[in-house]
């Protein structure tokens, strides 16, 4: 592997979720997190999973990441079954989950060091490339506690892009950020996705966020976790979260969510 091939984007892969079920015990009772969920995600598609807490959307993300095992069904990435975590599928969590004992550059290098075939200087070059991409090239020597919430998530994004995955899994990555920082991320994430095409699975509560980012929005209902409806979003890119067209689409999806009486309370406007 050379630096040139490393910096070339890996081809995004197709994800295929087939009849997946998952139960676990939490707080002394059985939770039926996913019940016979099937979903086809195309190469390079940006898909948003939306639903209230407990609907299994994060569980599905963790199963695709290989961090949790499904009880039934199968999940394939590019045709191969998922058996555990892999660098072809990187995860970005709601908390940045950066390592405080490492500086920004070393945080991004953590995953790269586990990738065979690159020399130390090549790894640093790759890490710096992605830190520049998220606009943090001047903060390589900073420690995590010195960064704002938004900057931490930028580092986390660079860290998950650096090993050049085919799939990017994002679990409410912007939920803890303030509105202005979040809006900036919507633009940046769309741009990065356009330039470095990855298959993105994005979990969120926020319907507008889902409409702003996704090619497709998948609605989940809880108890048991199932897919209730899907929406194709045809708005032209790059989308602005504050645009009227977007608000109209979001309203339609919110109405669909509210149509399910379980959700009416959570999504009341």
């Amino acid at each position: 592997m050379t630096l040139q091939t490393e910096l070339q984007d890996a081809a995004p892969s197709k994800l295929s979720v087939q009849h997946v079920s998952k139960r676990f015990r939490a707080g002394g009772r059985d939770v039926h997190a996913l019940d016979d969920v099937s979903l086809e995600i195309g190469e390079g598609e940006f898909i948003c999973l939306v639903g209230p807490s407990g609907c299994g959307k994060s569980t599905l993300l963790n199963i695709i990441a290989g961090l949790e095992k499904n009880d039934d069904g199968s999940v394939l990435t590019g045709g191969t079954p998922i058996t555990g975590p892999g660098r072809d599928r990187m995860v970005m969590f709601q908390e940045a989950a950066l390592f405080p004992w490492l500086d920004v550059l070393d945080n991004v290098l953590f995953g790269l060091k586990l990738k065979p075939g690159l020399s130390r200087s090549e790894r640093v070059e790759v890490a710096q490339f992605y830190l520049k991409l998220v606009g943090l090239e001047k903060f390589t020597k900073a420690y995590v506690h010195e960064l704002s919430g938004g900057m931490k998530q930028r580092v986390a994004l660079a860290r998950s892009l650096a090993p050049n995955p085919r799939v990017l899994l994002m679990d409410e990555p912007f939920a803890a950020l303030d509105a202005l920082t979040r809006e900036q991320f919507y633009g940046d994430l769309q741009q990065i996705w356009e330039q470095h095409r990855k298959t993105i699975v994005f979990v969120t509560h926020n319907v507008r966020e889902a409409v702003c980012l996704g090619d497709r929005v998948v609605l989940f209902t809880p108890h048991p976790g199932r897919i209730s409806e899907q929406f194709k979003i045809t708005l032209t890119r790059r989308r602005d979260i504050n645009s009227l067209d977007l608000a109209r689409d979001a309203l339609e999806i919110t109405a669909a969510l509210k149509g399910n009486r379980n959700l009416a309370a959570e999504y009341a406007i």
Partner: protein
Amino acid sequence: MSLKRLLQILGFFLLVFVIWEALFLARIWSPVLVPSPLSVGRYLYEAIMDGTLWAATIVTMRRLLLGYLFGIALGLPIGLLTARFRFLSDTVGLLALGLQTLPSVCWVPLALLWFGQTETAMFFVVVMGTLWSMIIATDSGVRNVPPIYARAAQTMGSSGFHVWLRVMLPASLPFVVSGMKQGWAFAWRSLMAAEIYVTILSGFGLGNLLHYGRELNAMEQVIGIMFVIIVIGLLADKILFSPWERLLHRRWGTVK
């Protein structure tokens, strides 16, 4: 530090010194019980010049560092193991918790019976002072690592031993350092107690000098050695732990 603060500090200690000297001059108590600060200074000067103080310090520090480093080196992996395996936590972990509450000077009688009046007995006491705190601190350090660190590392291709070495161990560093500090305090105290309590012919430490000061009714020696013990304690804190605490402060943003 501003000049004003420096002067305040110097002024305070000068005042302590003056009060002490005044009490000595007032002759309320016998000079055998309250010696002049000047005679303490003279004792220290002589002990430094004839080499006894230096030799005793070397003996004490060698005992302390050998036992302490061994205790750390043993306690760290055991703590990692008790945090990892339920069985070890229920057994060794519980034992460590129990033995940590035992003041480490209580090991001295047992050490003497087992090893006699030897360096091994001293080594044993210092190790017992360090080991249990280190096990418990490392154990709770690992348990306090946010689970998301290990999950994030796994998605980046880390697994098994690599997760422990590169994630769990550095992540629990704040706890490990406080365990090292506590272990040091316990080891230092128990070593002093042991040295006062038993004479070991292979080397006279600071505790021995303190003990002989009492036997000879040489109060200036007792106070002088106490002073040296305080200084070593302060220096150890600066030399051994300040670098770690600076590192924690810089990376974790913890309070200095």
